[in-house]
């Protein structure tokens, strides 16, 4: 590639994150090309991008997940870099590799790092080598081995495929008598789905908080962290409320956590933006490494709100080889930020998907509220993709103030058309567990029916 070629970024995503990336590029004076599906031809990001190309039909597997079409379009439109956003191809080693093979800068980690971090076992090994605590447990290749290991760990245990992800083939076992049957089932599922029957057995932590650390590394060996976020309000592993900082942490625990994250980043000399996820056992004051998300995350705005750092801008700049302009001592956490995910899921029907035309969309113009969204009035919310409609982010000098602003924002939000999770979000903000922040990751699954009991 000639050095003189101007920077031009291909955006391989859709929805609010595509808009977010286009805006970051605009502010940097970088031209953009957006690859869309046929359905998204007239979407808000399609209208905002410098140029838009239709990758394929509406179905994501033939458009947003089509590595060949994405890379071909990026090269043919003269792009010098590619931003994968989150979801879709963002963690796909084959995309990062195809970019490298075609002189495109992949705005993310190197393919080898995606490979190492994408696999539970190798990611765990990296964490262990970095001195980061991992959950008690390990890989097993027979039922007897699993029994012996579970005996050491103590029940309940989680039994899951060692390769692959997405909670597939995951079993919770409370008693030794059920272990071998669960192990055999997990092994056969793992063999069928991933071609490897290795089964992972680990301690199941029932009451844990989900706490994650934002990290950023450049190509010159510099690594910083941008403090932590808490995302314990989840429904079936889908986050619904995220905040920064995590108020459940004592200063010493926070310091320990940030140290773990930096140590892991340095262990593999991680380049790009990333998140290191942990489970925090509040009773035992114990940390355990969960996984690394080697990409921008949905909840990045809460970190931006409390640190004032534009994470997507930094991610793009380090990808182009620039050294980090921020040092660790420049990162300060100011106040508190909370994000709510508004989704097209019917709160009154167990969060069933509910696409359709938005007949009314009038967010309230309120101070201290940030809205990341691709919605507009009369937008036809599609059934083909993720249910995320908007991220409503409130900043306040403290947690109570942020919660109060969120309440106002929801109260004054005018939305008609698809059924949403708005009624649930409103109730969440008034729930004592959320107000006091003693929620753990399984809380919402149990609490949802009770929260939605009143059909109002």
């Amino acid at each position, binding site marked *: 590639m000639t050095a003189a070629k101007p920077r031009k970024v291909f955006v391989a995503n859709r929805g609010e994150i595509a808009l977010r990336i286009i805006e970051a590029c605009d502010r940097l004076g970088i031209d953009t090309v957006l690859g869309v599906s046929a359905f998204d031809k007239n979407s808000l990001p*399609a209208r905002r991008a410098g140029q838009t190309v*239709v990758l394929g039909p509406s179905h994501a597997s033939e*458009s947003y997940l089509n590595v060949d*079409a994405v*890379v*071909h379009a990026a090269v043919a439109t003269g792009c010098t870099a590619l931003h994968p956003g989150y979801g879709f191809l963002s963690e796909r080693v084959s995309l990062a590799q195809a970019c490298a093979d075609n002189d495109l800068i992949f705005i993310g980690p190197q393919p080898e790092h995606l490979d190492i971090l994408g696999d539970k076992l190798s990611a765990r090994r990296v964490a262990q080598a970095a001195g980061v605590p991992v959950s008690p447990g390990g890989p097993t290749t027979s039922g007897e081995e699993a029994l012996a290991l579970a005996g050491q760990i103590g029940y309940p245990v989680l039994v899951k495929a060692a390769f692959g992800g997405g909670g597939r083939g995951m079993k919770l076992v409370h008693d030794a008598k059920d272990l071998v049957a669960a192990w055999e089932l997990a092994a056969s599922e793992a063999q069928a789905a991933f071609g490897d029957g290795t089964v992972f057995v680990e301690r199941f932590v029932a009451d844990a908080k989900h706490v994650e650390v934002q990290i950023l590394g450049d190509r010159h060996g510099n690594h910083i962290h941008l403090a932590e976020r808490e995302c314990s309000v989840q429904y079936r592993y889908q986050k619904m409320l995220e905040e920064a900082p995590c108020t459940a942490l004592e200063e010493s625990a926070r310091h320990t956590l940030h140290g773990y994250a930096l140590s892991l980043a340095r262990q593999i000399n991680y380049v790009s933006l990333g998140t290191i996820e942990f489970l925090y056992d509040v009773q035992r004051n114990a940390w355990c490494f969960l996984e690394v998300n080697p990409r921008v995350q949905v909840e990045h705005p809460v970190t931006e709100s409390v640190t004032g750092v534009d994470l997507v801008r930094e991610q793009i700049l380090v990808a182009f080889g620039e050294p980090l302009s921020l040092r660790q001592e420049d990162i300060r956490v100011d106040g508190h930020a909370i994000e709510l995910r508004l989704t097209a899921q019917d709160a009154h029907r167990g969060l069933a998907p509910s696409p359709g035309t938005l007949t009314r969309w009038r967010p309230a113009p309120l101070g201290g509220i940030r809205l990341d969204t691709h919605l507009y009035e009369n937008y036809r919310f599609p059934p083909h993709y993720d249910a995320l409609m908007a991220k409503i982010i409130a900043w306040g000098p403290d947690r109570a103030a942020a919660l109060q602003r969120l309440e106002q924002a929801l109260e004054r939000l005018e939305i008609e058309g698809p059924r949403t999770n708005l009624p649930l979000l409103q109730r969440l903000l008034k729930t004592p567990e959320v107000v006091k922040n003693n929620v753990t990751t399984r809380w919402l699954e149990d609490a949802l029916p009770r929260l939605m009991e009143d059909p109002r």
Partner: protein
Amino acid sequence: MDIDLAELASLVALLKEADFTEFRYDKGETHIVVRRGAVEAEAVRPSSAAPAAHIAPTTPAPLAAQPIAPGDTQKSKPSASGIARNPVPGAKVITAPMLGTFYGAPKPGEPPFVHIGDAVGPDSVVCIVEVMKLMNSVSAEVSGTIVAIHAENGELVEFGQPLFSVQESSAS
């Protein structure tokens, strides 16, 4: 590119009287294609001396920056090449089944799969769309006569972009 304007003018004068739908003139680096008849109105705007004179390179470009056709998602300037981008009203349109690079001929230097005026059947190959070095043949899928070609050799075509207009023969 040197074009003898006097030569061109006499050519046009001759063509005025002649009965044809497509005329091709190749001389060294100069390639002139003049179409008449079913070609869309905008391509035969009388403002220029040569009606729909179209000069295009015929060798496929390597995978590199390519011009892109202005589809409805495109806000940039209209095509300068004089290619009729919009389908002929009433005709069947063959669209790109995938995003890729459009090639009108099987190999560089070979004649194109189809010309305007050619009859095609459902299985007739009309072009190639290349995606990451993989060549995908595109079939007409209808029977009829090619009345317009909407893409240029070597350009990036989007999924669903019109490539050819075909006047169906079975239309009653």
